[in-house]
């Protein structure tokens, strides 16, 4: 599957498929730009300038991509075990809220406070994942249903807690975290980004070498055979959803400690839902999550420039993102196109 000499072949093939899907998405987006009476080239140029034009825009792109790396990893992690963790958005909120709370503790040293905030945020969000897994293992409740329901419950619960905590009924954010809890950074890019990359490497090594990853993969491939071969399927599901939730929680913590310095109800910015798309496009490969999250970040940040330069709606980037996801989801479409491309190329070679 993911080893041996075929590895590189698979990589090349997957990269080709994603590239084709991306080109289709750009073409579809181009049609909309043309319909609005503008040049697609100008529009895509504006997006690129918006995302990379200056150091500030570049750092914004990186910051937009960071939570998507966490949530993309989180979704892919559970998906390897055949679990569709649709509760990521709720887990991001749990992580964010707990990080904001811990961040407000009067601990003078950031060296102590920041790791503590990350760890407790991950634990809280992991607990949300564990609840989903428990409901599935114990009562057979689909994690897709419980994930959505838990998100709605948590979303309102944290909003209420935030107001109680702030002490005013109309509060739109929690009291700010202590200065010691602010994430250090360089040029507007905080350390949360480095933590995200470290997680990518950790998950990559974990999937490649550990027994735990193998068991998750086995349960994802065939839970019945796994049960007959002595794997504790329930335990594996608890593990996969727990860790998945914990990683989603890091996204929330990184946002709060690095950017907003307080809990806000829309703190996630949809990172939970987009994480599903990231994992889908990255085919659950932890290394591929990075470029895909970056691409999504480019589209998100570049979209603002689109409005400024061309007075085009930034929703265009949403069209591109979703066309990309749709094209990738149509699992037989891109391999088909990749095959056609290959035959065309081999014919060319034959003619020459």
């Amino acid at each position, binding site marked *: *599957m993911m*080893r*041996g000499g075929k590895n590189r072949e698979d990589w090349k093939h997957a990269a080709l498929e994603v590239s084709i899907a991306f080109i289709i998405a750009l073409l579809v987006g181009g049609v909309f730009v043309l319909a609005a009476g503008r040049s697609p080239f100008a529009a895509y140029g504006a997006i690129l300038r918006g995302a990379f034009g200056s150091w500030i825009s570049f750092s914004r792109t990186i910051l937009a991509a960071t939570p998507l790396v966490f949530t993309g990893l989180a979704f892919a992690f559970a998906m390897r075990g055949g679990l569709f963790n649709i509760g990521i958005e709720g887990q991001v909120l749990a992580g964010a809220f707990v990080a904001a709370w811990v961040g407000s503790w009067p601990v003078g040293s950031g060296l102590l406070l920041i790791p503590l905030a990350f760890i407790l945020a991950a634990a809280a969000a992991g607990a949300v994942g564990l609840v989903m897994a428990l409901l599935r293992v114990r009562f057979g409740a689909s994690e897709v249903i419980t994930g959505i329901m838990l998100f709605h419950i948590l979303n309102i619960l944290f909003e209420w807690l935030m107001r109680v905590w702030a002490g005013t009924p109309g509060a739109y954010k929690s009291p700010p975290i202590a200065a010691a809890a602010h994430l250090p950074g360089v040029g507007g890019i905080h350390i949360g980004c480095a933590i995200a990359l470290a997680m990518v490497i950790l998950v990559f090594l974990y999937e490649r*070498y*550990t*027994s*735990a*990853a*193998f*068991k998750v993969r*086995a349960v994802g*491939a*065939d839970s*019945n*055979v*796994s*049960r*007959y*071969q*002595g*794997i504790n399927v329930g335990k594996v599901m608890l593990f996969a959803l727990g860790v998945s939730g914990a990683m989603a929680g890091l996204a929330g913590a990184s946002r709060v400690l690095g950017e907003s310095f307080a809990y806000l109800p829309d703190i996630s910015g949809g990172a939970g839902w987009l994480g599903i798309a990231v994992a889908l496009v990255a085919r659950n490969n932890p290394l591929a999550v990075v470029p895909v999250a970056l691409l999504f970040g480019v589209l998100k940040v570049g979209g603002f420039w689109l409005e400024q330069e061309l007075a085009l709606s930034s929703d265009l980037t949403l069209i591109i993102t979703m066309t990309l996801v749709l094209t990738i989801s149509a699992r037989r479409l891109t391999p088909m196109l990749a095959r056609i491309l290959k035959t065309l190329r081999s014919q060319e070679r034959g003619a020459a």
Partner: protein
Amino acid sequence: MPPALELRGITKRFGNILALDNVDFSVPAGSVTALVGENGAGKTTLVGIAAGAVRPDSGEINAGGETLALSRPLDALSRGVGLVYQHTRLVDDLSCAENVALGVPPSRCGIISRDKLSEKVSQLFDRLRLDRGPDELLASLTLPERQKVEIARLLYRGVKILLLDEPTALLLPQETEELFTVLREEASRGAAIVFVTHRLEEVFKIAERIVVLRAGCKVGQRKVSETTPDEIAVMMVGEVEAEPRLKAGLFEEEMPIPLLENATVIRRGERVARLKDFTLEVFPGAIHGVAGVAGNGQDEIFDLLAGVISPSRGRVMVKPGEIARVPGDRFRQGGIPDFTLSENVELAHGDIRSGFILNRAGAALVAKKVIGDLDVKNAGPETLYGSLSGGNAQKFLVGRELAKHGTPVTCLFNPTRGIDFASRAYLHSRIRAISGAVLLISYDLEELLELSDTITVLYRGESRGTFARGEIPRQSLASLMTGGGA
């Protein structure tokens, strides 16, 4: 008479494996043709191609004087070619009649005419000697009954050329006889019947012609009246190995290893126990057989030992890690088809995946050893398990368990079901050579009589007694298995 079905020059590759090499195969109407060969010889592929379920790389198929489009099951059906699969493909939650009419109910303007359907299905069931009403739920039917529903389904669609893939693999001797009676009647009505099997004695009972495949090539065809089982056996495998010597009898001085103690299993939502107060013990160095008709508690015994279910009452005396197990369903319990052989070793060998780091190199070594040791054909550690033929998959599973360390008990559930007799004989010799205690659960009475030192007869979840080799005649065992007295 011109052939009812004719395949010409059929070639089929799966990846690098040549499954069929330029095979010609024809079936005359009004007769039974047996298709025999070792596992991986290409029998299942050939009937799959005839039925339009598998697309050949090259070749031509003619049925009823017309050329069929390749790989179109509906096209094959409409020309009267139908396949009864080894594992029946019916819907449990529908009635018998609905299963028969699946996809093509008699209807007028979209309204299904149930009376007409019931009448037609009743007629078909009478003709097939199936004593069931059209409205009975399929879930309540036994395996041989399901097979007949499957045949009825094809006859309902006007099938004249009936292909059966290993129809007798899971049947008792008596059920096999009944099926043969029905098939002979259909042949005398003019149907062309193709019968895939491994059991040579059956071939000589039912078939008029025998076609032998070996390694994807047609070795030859014979009329039954003009050949002998020995000749066919040699055609199939080259030469037959001599039977290994039987293992010595029970060692009286050995201490028994208890497996189950008064175990009772009541499945969720059911009132009748699947297994009742069942006690089971095995002896080191001896093979203990469990005989019985399918569905009399064998699955529950295995599931208890595998730790997949726990008993409602009573106790399981061994931990799953202490017992090497070959489950009854190769592809849904034994291994993950999408995983490589090496990964399937990692799956089953607890010691390889017990550390923090997965012992991949160790697993690859074990896989290599198993492949060489049990002669798993066309395979390496990186081969996908799902690409193995049934017999090779079974060899791999048995070998994988034999390679386990520290398991004093080996439990095998139908270890040779549906595999060719050369592999079967080979696996039997390996089973005899196991030094620890062996529990052999099998639907195949011949296998049990051949291998077991002691046999427990299972009927409706209860033991009907335990017997030592030679203590009880075959007929009495068969009678106990079906609820009669000894």
